């Protein structure tokens, strides 16, 4: 279980998280939705210790990860995997090398065992004949799939997805969502997805958290969120220009 307790975070004079409280249920998929620039990715980076809160606490399975030394933090991170918005593949490595990298560095598997596991991982995300390609030779959707294969290879307990479908066409977007849903059901990991994909995300997530102005405005099941009476939640889901959310467009 991941708990964020009264988390505050500012960058210079800009306050991003403002007393955020959130509990992520174990073995379920939780989606965090909210307008752009509200700190969803910042919140995700706090969960894995890439950012430290100015105030408040972050607990992973009951243990605080705030202020841990690098070696202690790495022990906590063994439980995690993260899929980044732009996949964050190592651009000087081929697809095979990218996916094999954590196995080569963190296990004592033989070369043939690594080859087999990489082949299975790539097959599971629906990729064929891409082993020798470099990330800049792949489409956006393929990069996301490689990122997903790399993340799931060490069978993590918790997987964080930072806008996994941003910039993809509707068909690929649906395919990636389906893939996340299937793999979560198959491996039973705890998933946290930061997303803007309304209404697709309601089919993928067990719980939805609405982040607005640095706080969780509402947390509930997809149906509870869809029937919410809160004007901000309603406006965000409907995509209406009229309402409390400022679109920033004149």
């Amino acid at each position, binding site marked *: 279980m991941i708990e964020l307790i009264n988390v505050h975070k500012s960058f210079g004079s800009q306050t991003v998280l403002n007393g955020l409280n959130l509990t992520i249920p174990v073995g379920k998929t939780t989606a965090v939705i909210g307008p752009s620039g509200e700190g969803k990715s910042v919140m995700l*980076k706090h969960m*894995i210790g*890439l950012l430290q809160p100015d105030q408040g606490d972050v607990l992973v399975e009951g243990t605080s990860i705030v202020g841990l030394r*690098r070696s202690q933090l*790495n*022990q906590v*991170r*063994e439980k*995690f*995997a*993260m899929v*980044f*918005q*732009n996949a*964050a*593949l*190592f*651009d000087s490595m081929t697809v095979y090398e990218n996916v094999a*990298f*954590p196995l080569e*560095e*963190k296990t004592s598997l033989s070369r043939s065992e690594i080859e087999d596991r990489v082949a299975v991982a790539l097959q599971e995300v629906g990729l064929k004949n891409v082993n020798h390609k470099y990330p800049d030779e792949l489409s956006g959707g393929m990069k996301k799939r490689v990122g997903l294969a790399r993340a799931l290879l*060490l069978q993590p307990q918790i997987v*964080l997805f930072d806008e996994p479908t941003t910039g993809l066409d509707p068909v690929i977007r649906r395919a990636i969502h389906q893939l996340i849903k299937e793999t979560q059901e198959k491996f039973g990991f705890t998933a946290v997805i930061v997303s803007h994909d309304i209404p697709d995300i309601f089919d993928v997530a067990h719980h939805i958290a609405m982040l607005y102005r640095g706080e969780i405005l509402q947390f509930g099941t997809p149906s509870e969120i869809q029937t919410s009476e809160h004007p901000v939640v309603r406006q965000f889901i409907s995509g209406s220009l009229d309402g409390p959310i400022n679109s920033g467009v004149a």
Partner: protein
Amino acid sequence: MTHFLRTIGRGTIGQLQELGNCGQFLAYALYSILRRPGRPVHILKQVNFIGTKSLFVIVLTAAFTGMVLGLQGYYTLTKFGSEGMLGTAVALSLIRELGPVLSALMVTGRAGSAITAEIGIMRISEQIDAMETMALDPYKYLISPKFIAAMISMPLLCGIFDVVGIYGGWVVGVKLLGVNPGAYFSEMYKSVEWKDVYSGFVKSYSFGIIIAWIGCYKGYYAGHGAEGVSKATTESVVLTSVLILVWDYFLTSVLL
């Protein structure tokens, strides 16, 4: 008035913080070299990048530096009727000072900037974050191999610079200006001491650390986007060059 003082104070604190971060980065990088030096294959790759690929520019610079030293030295020494000392003048200038400093400045321009750009791009494209989320230490994979490679490459490049430079001076002094070839090398042999060679290598070794330190640090903490990387690269080259010259002065005053 309060606003002015606040601005000055904020700037000073910012600079001190940057200095502290920079020092902490060096300390952790050196600690990582001892604890997690990285795989030999990664180190060799970096030796190839920092060392082997800098050879051409080092040889070219060394040849012309030696040649100009030959010309200037001959012009000065003939005034005193001591052109036989040309070999000594060229060799001592190169071994003690110009070899380590110029080779370091050349490597800064060629490899130091590339190190910053490479790590900076990895930073802004979240590749370093990805490594950290895998519970892998970026220092082991990115920083340590570059430090070790720079510490291996710089003394070797400096040695090559010295030798090529001495032969550059020989071409101009002996072949073009008619200095006695025996005198060129025998005077050099008599005058150059082990201490001169040793001090040159100590300098180039420490310059290697400076190049890797500033190059990696500036890339690791690069700002946002292409502009952030471009700024980090420029700062890296300028700061490394200045630090090399300042450190050279202090080291010379200690080693003399």
